[in-house]
């Protein structure tokens, strides 16, 4: 094992060798020695200023007026070079061609009351950092003019508000009257509704039901009477028919008897004729004459027949009379039926008329209900209207009160209600003070990454590299020696930068020197380890240098140096916060600008320490990879 003293001597010898290697290359020595002087000189001269200058503004106006002239004069007063353009296109072309930094186009009359009036800034966002600086200055000039216009417009507005308050006050009584009228109308409608509600408009109340029932009774009585009459007539007719039948059968029987008698009479007559042809006188013991007797019987029979026939004729007469009676009965029945039918029809007609009347009365009742409902709706609508009118009245009264009670009536106070004042939290005068932390990190970063990767590459490409690895010195010693060589160079350069910044440009460093130096070592270490890792990882010097520049450029791009990281996309912005450049700048800002000790930036310092550990591991792994490549 090598003891510490020997080990230190070995490391010292390695560092000495590294310095010899660097310094014996003229270009390297020149960069290392003169680099920091040149950088700080250029940065100091470039940034030691308080504002923008030599800004060219091309302007175009449709028509010129006092406001336009005022803006142009204001720009010229602030050392802007104003270029007049005849058209808006020409104005924009000046920016495109680089002859102007910004084009301002005035359209419309800026002082007239026309709606169409605007001020358009045509800017070249490819010069993003310059655009906002110029815009900031120019808009400041324009804003002051616009503010005057705002005050004027506000005055007009306030006057119109006063007139409105007066008008409202005048019209307030009209609204009260409107409310009273509506209230009266509501009362009237309520009365009308009540009256209509009290009206009995239905068929029952008119007694039509009783009439209907009576008519129905009459109708049934007529029907009953008709039925009884018809039944009676039919009974009479039946009796007549029966009687006629009896008579007819009796007549038939009588005819039969007559015929029998006539037959008998004929017989008797024949007998009489016969008997008379005989002389019954000679008949002993016959005390009568048969001819006579038979003649007498025949006479009796004739008489009987005559009587029977007479009776028959009587019967016929009766039948005839019965037929007359039947006819009379039929006639009576028909006339009765006709009368009953007429009565029935009359009753039905009456009943129908009653039904129609009842329907109409019911319809009338429905219409009344509908009217009452409409009236109720009207009343409730009127209620709402009254409430609205009340609200309007209250609102108008409030507006009136508010207008009357408006405390701020000064247009200038309205235009600028909050007086803004920007005060720098540190007493600096130039951009150099603000940008010093970022510039310092930038220089340290580029120096560290490029120098360390170059030294590693040079070391790797020397043929002695192999001999180093076959000596009994642990591999990590070579890493340590290269790191120490770099840190010494970068540290010295950093100190030179800081001292020149202090002495030549008045940037304060002595007050917080220890913390600044600690931070400088820490920041340099991170970028040196990164540069060394790149050096070991890449095979050729060209790709290594390219990777170093690319890496440093990435750190620079994703920092607030060019554009604020807050303006990056959310995801990239979140990652960019952990950019070593951003963290280093944050630490140095706290130390250089605010004069804090390194403990005030402990979170960032811890993060840098974390990076340091991670990068040490990565560096060792890269060296192992490179050593394998050597094998």
């Amino acid at each position, binding site marked *: 094992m090598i003891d510490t003293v020997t080990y230190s001597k070995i490391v010292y*010898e390695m560092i000495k060798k590294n310095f010899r*290697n660097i310094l014996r290359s003229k270009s390297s020595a020149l960069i290392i020695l003169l680099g920091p002087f040149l950088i700080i000189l250029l940065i100091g001269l470039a940034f030691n200023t308080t504002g923008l200058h030599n800004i060219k503004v091309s302007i175009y106006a449709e028509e010129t007026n006092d406001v336009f002239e005022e803006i142009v004069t204001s720009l010229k007063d602030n050392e802007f070079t104003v270029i007049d353009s005849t058209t808006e296109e020409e104005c924009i072309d000046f920016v495109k061609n680089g002859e102007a930094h910004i084009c301002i186009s005035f359209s419309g009359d800026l002082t007239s009351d026309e709606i169409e009036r605007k001020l358009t800034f045509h800017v070249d966002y490819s010069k993003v950092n310059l655009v906002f600086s110029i815009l900031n200055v120019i808009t400041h000039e324009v804003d002051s003019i616009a503010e005057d216009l705002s005050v004027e417009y506000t005055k007009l507005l306030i006057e119109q508000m006063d007139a409105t308050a007066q008008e409202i006050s005048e019209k307030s009584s009209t609204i009260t009257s409107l409310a009273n009228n509506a209230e009266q109308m509501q009362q009237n409608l309520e009365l009308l509704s009540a009256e209509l509600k009290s009206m009995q408009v239905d068929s029952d109340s008119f007694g039509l039901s009783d009439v209907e029932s009576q008519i129905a009774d009459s109708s049934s009585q007529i029907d009953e009477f008709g039925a009884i009459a018809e039944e009676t007539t039919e009974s009479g007719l039946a009796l007549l028919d029966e009687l006629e039948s009896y008579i007819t059968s009796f007549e038939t029987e009588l005819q039969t008897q007559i015929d029998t008698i006539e037959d008998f009479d004929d017989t008797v007559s024949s007998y009489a004729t016969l008997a008379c042809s005989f002389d019954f006188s000679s008949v002993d013991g016959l005390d009568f004459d048969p001819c006579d007797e038979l003649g007498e019987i025949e006479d009796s029979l004739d008489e009987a027949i005559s009587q029977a026939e007479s009776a028959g004729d009587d019967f016929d007469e009766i039948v005839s009379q019965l037929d007359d009676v039947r006819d009379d009965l039929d006639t009576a029945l028909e006339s009765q039926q006709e009368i009953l039918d007429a009565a029935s029809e009359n009753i039905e007609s009456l009943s129908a008329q009653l039904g129609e009347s009842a329907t109409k009365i019911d319809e009338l009742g429905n219409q009344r209900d509908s009217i009452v409902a409409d009236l109720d709706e009207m009343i409730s609508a009127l209620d709402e209207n009254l409430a609205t009118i009340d609200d309007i009245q209250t609102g108008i009264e409030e507006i009136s009160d508010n207008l009357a009670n408006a405390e701020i009536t000064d247009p200038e106070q309205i235009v600028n209600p909050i007086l803004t004042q920007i005060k720098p939290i540190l007493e600096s005068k130039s951009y150099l003070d603000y940008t010093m932390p970022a510039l310092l990190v930038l220089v340290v970063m580029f120096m560290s990454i490029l120098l360390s990767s170059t030294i590693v590459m040079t070391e790797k490409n*020397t043929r002695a*590299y192999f001999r180093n690895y*076959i*000596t009994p010195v642990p591999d990590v010693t070579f890493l340590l020696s290269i790191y120490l060589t770099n840190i010494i160079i970068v540290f010295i350069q950093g100190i030179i930068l800081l001292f020149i910044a202090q002495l030549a440009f008045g940037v304060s460093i002595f007050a917080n020197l220890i913390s600044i130096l600690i931070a400088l070592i820490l920041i340099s270490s991170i970028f040196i380890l990164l540069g060394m890792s790149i050096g070991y990882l890449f095979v050729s010097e060209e790709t290594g240098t390219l990777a170093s520049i690319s890496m440093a450029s990435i750190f620079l791009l994703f920092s607030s140096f060019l554009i604020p990281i807050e303006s990056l996309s959310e995801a990239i912005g979140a990652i960019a916060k952990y950019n070593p450049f951003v963290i280093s700048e944050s630490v140095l800002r706290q130390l250089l600008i605010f004069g804090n000790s390194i403990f005030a930036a402990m979170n960032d310092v811890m993060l840098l320490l974390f990076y340091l550990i991670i990068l040490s591991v990565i560096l060792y792994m890269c060296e192992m990879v490179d050593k394998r490549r050597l094998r």
Partner: protein
Amino acid sequence: MQGNQPPLISCQNVYKKLGMNLILKNINLDIYPNEIFGIIGVSGAGKTTLLRSLIGFYKINHGTVLYQDKDISKQTELIRKIFGFGSQDNCFYEKLTLFENLMYFGQLYAVPEKERIQRANELLGLVGLAEDKNTLAKNLSGGMKRRLDLACSLMHSPKILILDEPTAGLDPGLRKHMWDLIMKINKTGTTVIVSSHLLSEIEHFCTRIGIINHGEMLKVGPPNELKDLYSRDEEIHLETWPGNYKQIADEIRKQRLPVNYLTVKEHKIIAYTPQAEFVLHKVLIILENMRERLLDVSVDKPSLNEVFEALTEKQRIKGISEDKLIEYIKSALKKGATKDKIEQTLLHQGWPEDVINGAMIKIS
């Protein structure tokens, strides 16, 4: 054991894999004190891997390396102190002076400062660069650079100096100068292991030689012993005019002269024979009869190159199956070669006689 001396370094069953390739296969090698041991082999044979394994730059996968009978395989620091390593690549810093380079590498070996200064001056004197001690290394000539590299590898006074192709890229004059220097260093008691593909140098300067091919140590021994072992023939080199070598060769074969192998190379006819005097006499008669004018004639023992070629060819053929041997004989017969000629060629290549006879019987 060489004489009564035990080996200084002994490699036993050493295997080394680089990636998926087995570069060293079962290397067994003894290096004795104060010898100059030469390792020869074609490019990719495993010379550099063997040397770098010895100095501990590569860790061997299997086997042991003994230093004075002690296993030092895992004692990297000790190995690096024992060995010095010089190469053809000039492993020093070109932007440092010669003295600074020596001081730097001396410091890496933890040589105390006074001793370092003394040693640096001594070495600069030894390699003949004392006058240029403050010259930047980049301003040296090729030969001087190689000597500086040698001096750098000796700064820690190693017991064994390993040199990987130390004369590669140097002109013959510088090569000789370099070898003189190596001999001088060897005489100071430093054992030297040197690899080269220039076999004539190795043959001339090394006490023993190891022939390595495809990672295998084919043979180890003194140069003459190796030559005797692999060829008891002598070489007759003839250069004639107009140089009808084919007809000359046919005439030699026709007369059945005791020639084992006959070949034409670099506009010369070379005959390998155990009876050089007799054959040369006969050949001169043949040349006279054929009206060939003798331009040059020489009789030599075969060079180490011949031994090397024979050994490597034998190793190549060992990898060929009997079937392939039969195919080879058949194709040679088709091309018009006689059986005798084929047999001679195969014997010369190191094929065992019984194997050749077996193949011939199968073909007939």
